[in-house]
């Protein structure tokens, strides 16, 4: 599903790289945690996969496509196959919950009818059936995060990326969101979660890739958050 080879990302020349010579393979249907302190390169890792960023060197293959050589015109098609949950939610401020989720279907040209059946279903899945007509600034952080997840998942993408999906949430809500991601993974979707939520990682027992200063320091299946730190 994902193959990274020798990937480095330098934001400012002569400063330490955000990611340094990263190699990794992630198979279809896997659930992977990417853990590390803030500044360890987790977000960069996610943003590279979405081609929000272009690496300084290295190659990235997603679903059989070299996303670095990809033409600008083709990028929207890549992104339609990747659902992404952002740390800062990235909801459209002038659209309601319903419309935000519907937008992901509108961009791929789904009919109004399909949208009207799928969007309420997904909003119910994330527990927001009461808030369909609320605008983002009328929602709490956890609710916005769930809208963001609903939008990422509504078109059933084969790959779901989540950058700190529980970063701003209380433990109970976090648990709900993690079990939601787990359920999504059970449907065959590859899920990649960047987090520093130790308890979550330890309780789920999934593959863990640990980053430190832009390097992969550990990659274990059925791993835990880490020792000592």
């Amino acid at each position, binding site marked *: 599903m994902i193959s990274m080879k020798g990937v480095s990302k330098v934001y400012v020349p002569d400063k330490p790289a955000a990611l340094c010579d990263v190699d990794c393979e992630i198979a279809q249907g896997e659930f992977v945690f990417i853990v590390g302190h803030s500044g360890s390169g987790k977000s960069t890792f996610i943003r590279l996969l979405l081609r929000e960023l272009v690496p300084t060197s290295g190659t990235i293959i997603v679903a059989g496509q070299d996303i670095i050589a990809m033409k600008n015109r083709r990028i929207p098609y890549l992104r339609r196959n990747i659902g992404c949950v952002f740390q800062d939610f990235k909801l459209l*401020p002038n659209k309601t919950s319903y419309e935000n989720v519907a937008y992901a279907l509108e961009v791929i*040209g789904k009919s109004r009818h399909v949208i009207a059946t799928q969007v309420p279903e997904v909003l119910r899945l994330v527990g927001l059936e009461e808030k369909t007509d609320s605008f983002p600034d009328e929602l709490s952080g956890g609710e916005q995060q769930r809208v963001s997840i609903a939008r990422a998942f509504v078109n059933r993408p084969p790959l779901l990326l989540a950058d700190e999906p529980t970063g701003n949430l209380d433990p109970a809500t976090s648990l709900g969101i993690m079990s939601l991601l787990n359920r999504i993974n059970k449907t065959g979707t590859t899920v990649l979660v960047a987090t520093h939520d130790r308890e979550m990682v330890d309780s789920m027992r999934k593959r863990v890739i640990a980053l430190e200063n832009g390097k992969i320091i550990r990659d274990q299946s059925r791993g835990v958050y880490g020792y000592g730190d």
Partner: protein
Amino acid sequence: MATSPSYFISETWSSFRRNWVMSLVAVSIIYISLLLVGAFFLMSSVVNEMASSFESKVSVQVFLKDDAVPADVQALQASIRKMPNVKSISYVTKEQALAIFKERTKNTPQLVEQLRNNPLPASIEVALVSPREVQGVVNLIVKDPLTAKVVKTPANLGTAKDTDIKYGQNVVEALFAATGVVRVFAAGFLGLLLIVSLVLIGNTIRLAIYSRRREIGIMRLVGASNWFIRTPFLLEGVLQALIGSILAILTLVAAQAVIVPWLQGNLKFLPVNIGGVTVAQLAALLVVAGVGIGLIGSGSAVRRYLKV
């Protein structure tokens, strides 16, 4: 699975409504600038009309001897009528000339009462196609052999004072110089005003889109193609421009309906007039300019933020 046009229309409308502050600002700026352009356009067309009407008053008057043979006078009329640049001619008899004089001096009737007989000569009035080339017509009339028979002093054009062929020699030059300056100035100023308002409108639209650049980035990240993002923005720019320009046109038409009759009533000596064609032209100009700049402004502004 193509996206239907109705999606873009409802998308545009809801975005216009929900960003109503920015929409209002954009519409007002478009309205005010186009109103200024339109008002100046109408004013300059009034000035132009005035200039033309002054110019069209330039005509040649050929004063006839009292003892001119009627056959010669008719022959001269026929000859003048055939000259190039002559629009029409009319013959003014001594009696008509006196009547005109009476009408002009009706505030001081003593002037006419003191006359024992009619001292005014009959004349041939020559209206011109192109008043600017009046001199050419005068030269032809002077050269015409019939002229010498019916006019006392046709020539000495240099010392124009006592000639019997009059066309306001001194005034004509100055008049054309003045109307020329007025026309050039009006056109130049209108052009400048048009450029300024187009830049202003373009900038306002860019600003409105700048305030939503984050949204454009988000749309890219959830997989929207460029045209899918761009279309509602373009339509929104067009909608703003359309509303602004239509409001400007309505205001101008209303203002014109009030102001022009008022001017005509109060400035009787000035020919105040706006042709219906001018208003239609103006409306077309405003809508085309507004919508054009709405499209170009929003298109170029969105383009910048699509690079995510």
